[in-house]
């Protein structure tokens, strides 16, 4: 017999009991669902990358040839005794060939007749292939059918007498394939982006030139080779593939999307583009909006009413004052809180008016009216009689008025900002590695979707509406809404299409 919580019995429930328990499961909050979605998306992307990488490696190790013959590379361990045995067998074989040849030469010496027909030294007879089907199985056991159609030219060259004819050229079905390749001929940009090719996230990897004869060159790796068009069946639909072979080795390839866009691989992080799709003339303007949004968001947080965001870049940690203050959130009940001056780092703030002016250069008038009222509750004057390290007795002070929760203090004529919030170490307002998405641009407004950072996690999306301030002509934040990261993902998915 064992004493325990009777409700522990409900653990490890079988299906019918589980159904009853899940019906009484508390509702999961929107915030919690967003967190779970964000975590799931992260893990899914990592797994997907691994799967695609694994597939690419497999593809690179496989050479498809005509008539459904599959050649592969398999790593095997050979027994140690095999090498000497093979060497001995080879010696015997070579000796046999030499002796046999000598015997044959001796036989023909007196009886050979010259017919006058010159045999070709090399005859490359190329069969017209209209559709070679390769069937392979992916990691999950699904069948992928790939049909490669090659526009080859029949050619017999290099006869022993030094003459040779040029190929007669492809005809029939090959002509249409040639036309398909001709349609792709021209210069393409090879681009890479982890974030759906949002301007500012694109890396140019080089130029791919596709020629009408089916050859290509790629400046990124200084390689040349041949282009092959094929069809791949996935999920019940057919996709036109474009593959680039360096010699007989598959180099890269992907899916034909339209006349200006070939997506490379199926992870969506690389592509070939040309024409309007490759036009980057408007990227600079887009990036300038991103920079404006980034700057405004950082400034917005500098004066945001939560303590963790107060001017982290401008704190002068050489000019600080520390007091021992009451903190009901801690078991000890008190903690040391350090305040720093905002001075000497390109920004100097000495009064509440200075902070307000700073905020007004960030907020639109209507937003300032809403946000700045918080500032009035954020200041406390500390008596000059206290010294650095002193405990300040706050017995009888209401919870929300405790000094440890105030963002600014005035002490001996200077203004200091609280640096000791439990969250004060959370630095960075926007994720540095993710591009801000800009939408709905007009001459006087735009909307930014900024990936937010909380601690070490990129799990927020700030939707920021910016407007032009009529009096100064500068951009201001007009509204600022904090959302789950999924909102960023949704807007990101609109790109690369």
């Amino acid at each position: 017999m064992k004493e325990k919580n009777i409700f522990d019995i409900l653990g490890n429930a079988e299906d019918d009991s589980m159904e009853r328990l899940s019906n009484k499961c508390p509702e999961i909050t929107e915030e919690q669902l967003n967190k779970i979605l964000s975590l799931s998306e992260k893990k899914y992307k990592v797994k997907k990358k691994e799967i695609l990488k694994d597939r690419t490696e497999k593809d690179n190790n496989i050479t498809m040839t005509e008539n459904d013959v599959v050649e592969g590379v398999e790593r095997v361990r050979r027994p140690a005794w095999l090498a000497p045995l093979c060497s001995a067998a080879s010696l015997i074989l070579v000796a046999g060939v030499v002796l046999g040849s000598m015997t044959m030469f001796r036989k023909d010496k007196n009886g050979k007749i010259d017919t006058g027909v010159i045999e070709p030294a090399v005859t490359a007879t190329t069969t017209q292939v209209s559709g070679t089907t390769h069937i392979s199985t992916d990691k999950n056991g699904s069948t992928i059918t790939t049909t490669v159609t090659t526009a080859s030219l029949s050619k017999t060259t290099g006869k022993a007498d030094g003459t040779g004819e040029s190929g007669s050229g492809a005809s029939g079905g090959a002509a249409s394939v040639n036309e398909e390749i001709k349609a792709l001929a021209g210069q393409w940009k090879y681009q890479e982006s982890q974030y759906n090719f949002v301007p500012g996230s694109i890396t140019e990897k080089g130029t791919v030139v596709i020629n009408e004869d089916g050859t290509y060159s790629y400046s990124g790796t200084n390689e040349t080779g041949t282009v092959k068009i094929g069809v791949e069946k996935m999920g019940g639909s057919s996709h036109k593939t474009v593959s680039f072979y360096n010699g007989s080795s598959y180099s890269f390839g992907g899916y034909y999307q339209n006349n200006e866009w070939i997506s490379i691989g199926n992870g969506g992080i690389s592509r070939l583009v040309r024409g309007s799709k490759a036009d980057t003339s408007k990227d600079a303007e887009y990036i300038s909006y991103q920079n404006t949004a980034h700057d405004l968001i950082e400034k917005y947080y500098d004066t945001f009413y939560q303590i963790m965001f107060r001017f982290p870049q401008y704190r002068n940690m050489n000019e600080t004052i520390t007091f021992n203050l009451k903190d009901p959130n801690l078991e000890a009940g008190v903690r040391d809180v350090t305040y720093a001056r905002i001075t000497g780092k390109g920004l100097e703030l000495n009064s509440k008016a200075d902070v307000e002016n700073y905020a007004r250069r960030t907020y639109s008038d209507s937003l300032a009216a809403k946000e700045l009222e918080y500032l009035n509750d954020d200041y406390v004057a500390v008596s000059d009689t206290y010294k650095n390290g002193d405990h300040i007795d706050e017995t009888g002070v209401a919870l929300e008025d405790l000094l440890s929760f105030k963002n600014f203090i005035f002490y001996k004529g200077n203004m200091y900002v609280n640096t000791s919030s439990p969250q004060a170490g959370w630095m960075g307002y926007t994720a540095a590695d993710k591009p801000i998405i800009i939408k709905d641009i007009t001459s006087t407004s735009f909307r930014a979707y900024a990936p937010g950072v909380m601690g070490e996690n990129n799990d927020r999306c700030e939707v920021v509406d910016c407007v032009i301030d009529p009096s100064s002509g500068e951009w201001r934040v007009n509204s600022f809404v904090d959302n789950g990261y999924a909102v960023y993902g949704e807007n990101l998915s609109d790109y690369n299409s």
Partner: protein
Amino acid sequence: MTSNELKQMLERSPAECHKALVKEYGRYVYAIVFNKLRNCGTKEDIEECVSDVFAAIFIKYEFDEDCDRDIKGYIGTVAKRSAIDRFRSLTSRINHTVYADEDDMQELVSDFSVDERVDRSELRRVLLDKIDELGEPDSTILIQKFYYNRKSAEIAESISMSDASVRTRCSRAIAKLKVKLVEAGITR
């Protein structure tokens, strides 16, 4: 959500599809994972495990053409397997979370003795039957408080009652449950 709807949504927008899956089955997966991990994992462990389940499901539906299956059944299976895997990796950490403000409440349920030899699945059914007999909102209050370890204030918010009412109803409901369990042969 049917398999066809899921497929169409996946083709249209994977992100939208993922969001819909989490929204529709998040609570279900959470309940299953919680059931396995409630005695050994923290809230974060449970959320991690739930996200593992959804990541596995996203991958499966993206790379497996054969997704004409019972979605809920399939998700339930993945959730159970993932939770068991996570349970195994967590079993060294025994941590049954009890909120400080609920200590008095815990006394109400800890004085039952459970004979390990009794068929646990039968016991589960009897317990759930007896809790259901209490009617709503008492059955939900008891399950959420003692099984899902929710604070009275949180339960109060979700069922639109005051914190004090939840605590009072809870004390009365657990007393009634005790009587019912004794009648059913489950004694101290």
